[in-house]
């Protein structure tokens, strides 16, 4: 397909984008038109489960998210390089020209993916993919009932009649 044809194809994409924008503008406008607006101090305060909001939310967050974004960037760029390869790999016309084409391109890509894999292993071993795991803590209560009594209670089996009317 030549470039001119593709330009018109993207023109149609623009058309659908314009439709989407119009839809959003229309709904927001309609909402503004018919929805009531009675703001008060309490309504406009930040929701924090009914407590008074404490400070701003624009604070530093866990740096791990940043790390993930960095690693993603590297992988994504590498992936963009593989896309054109995937379309020419194993193409019958190119294979017919030289039968070494298939093996050659495959080995070439193995080198490339190998480097990608080394990157993944490095990040993995470095612990950059680890997240802080929650440590379950068993609550301890000081009562005079021995723990074995609870175990006995837990092992008790109750037979529930099935097919009953609820």
């Amino acid at each position, binding site marked *: 397909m030549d470039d001119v044809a*593709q330009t018109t*194809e*993207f023109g*149609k*994409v623009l*058309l*659908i984008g314009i*439709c*989407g*924008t119009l*839809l*959003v503008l229309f*709904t*927001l406008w*309609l*909402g503004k038109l*018919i*929805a*009531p607006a009675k*703001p008060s*101090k309490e*309504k*406009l305060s*930040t*929701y*924090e489960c009914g407590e008074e909001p404490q400070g701003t*939310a*624009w604070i530093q*967050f*866990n740096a791990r*998210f940043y790390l*993930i*974004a960095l690693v*993603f960037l590297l*992988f*994504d760029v590498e*992936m963009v390089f*593989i*896309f054109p390869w*995937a*379309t*020419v*790999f*194993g193409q019958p016309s190119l*294979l017919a020209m030289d*039968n070494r084409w*298939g*093996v050659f391109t*495959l080995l070439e*890509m193995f080198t490339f*993916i190998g480097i*990608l*894999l080394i990157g*993944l292993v490095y990040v*993995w071993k470095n612990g950059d*993919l*680890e*997240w*802080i795991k*929650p440590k379950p803590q068993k609550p301890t209560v000081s009562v005079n009932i021995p723990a074995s009594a609870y175990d006995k209670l837990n092992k008790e089996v109750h037979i529930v009649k099935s097919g009953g009317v609820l």
Partner: protein
Amino acid sequence: MELAFIIEKFALVILIFVVTLVIAMYSTLAERKVAGFMQDRYGPDRAGPFGMLQPLCDGGKFFFKEEIIPAGAHKALFILGPTIAIITACISSAVIPWGRDLTIAGRVVPLQVADINVGILYVFGVVALGVYGIMLGGWASNNKFSLMGAVRAASQSISYEIAMGLSIIAMLMVTQTLSLREIVEQQAGFNWNIWVQPLGFLIFCTCAFAECNRVPFDLPECETELIGGYHTEYSSMKLGLYMFSEYINMFVSSAVMVTLYFGGYNFPFIDSLGLSPNLLAILGMVIFFLKIFAFIFFFMWIRWTLPRFRYDQLMNLGWKMLIPLSIANIVLTGVITIVKDTFF
């Protein structure tokens, strides 16, 4: 360019728009009906017969509710967030081929808005843009829960994008084209890509769930931890836009999965029926939508079957399971292709 051409394209765009919105609307009803069915209750059944008018009522209510923008929020970005979310959701459907070409009064009308030669890359790119909507909205709310939801959404979707891209690459090695129309045409009859790329499909499907923020990957908005996640502070129509974009995303990703792996509008014995091309095009489109509905049902089924992941489990699944698996899938596909070419 003649006028008739522009009118035809405009009509097609409007039609696809309306169909997308109606399906997204009725997905909300279907979700609640399916939930009701799975939990042995009726679901909404008051508004109209079988609750058919429920989505209209919900939509109306969104309009009539007061819009609240918190005093501490960044106002411009607060409005921009849901806007980006819904626009990216809508334009991702532009490259999906809905059916074969129709011939109306001597004119060939393709049932596809734009046949871009990098179709699948386009979908991939637009889906990646969608995360900006969530990230901006969550950050602009100036609410701690929203911020957490937004950050989670961003890192979740970028993590699963890699595995998704790698699984697409393995499929491209088989199809050797990026145009969605050509990919569908190659799957004529029963030569669906699912038979040659089963592992790739599994990876793609999992990533699609993660990209749509559907259960079990709905950590950006998990109610039990983050109240409403990134849309905690949103109300009225802006909340509606977020909800809507989620359902549109679900519809479009079902359509993409069907297009890539389940033959799109093809079905077995399509050419041995002996029907006229126009009738076949319409029949193909109906089949395509049936396949999409099956996938939407699958999305809902999963929602009521699997519990939500913990965040470290989610990241481990993405980075330590899906990425190595999809790389293995590429290697496997390459070796099999070469062996087949060389020895058979």
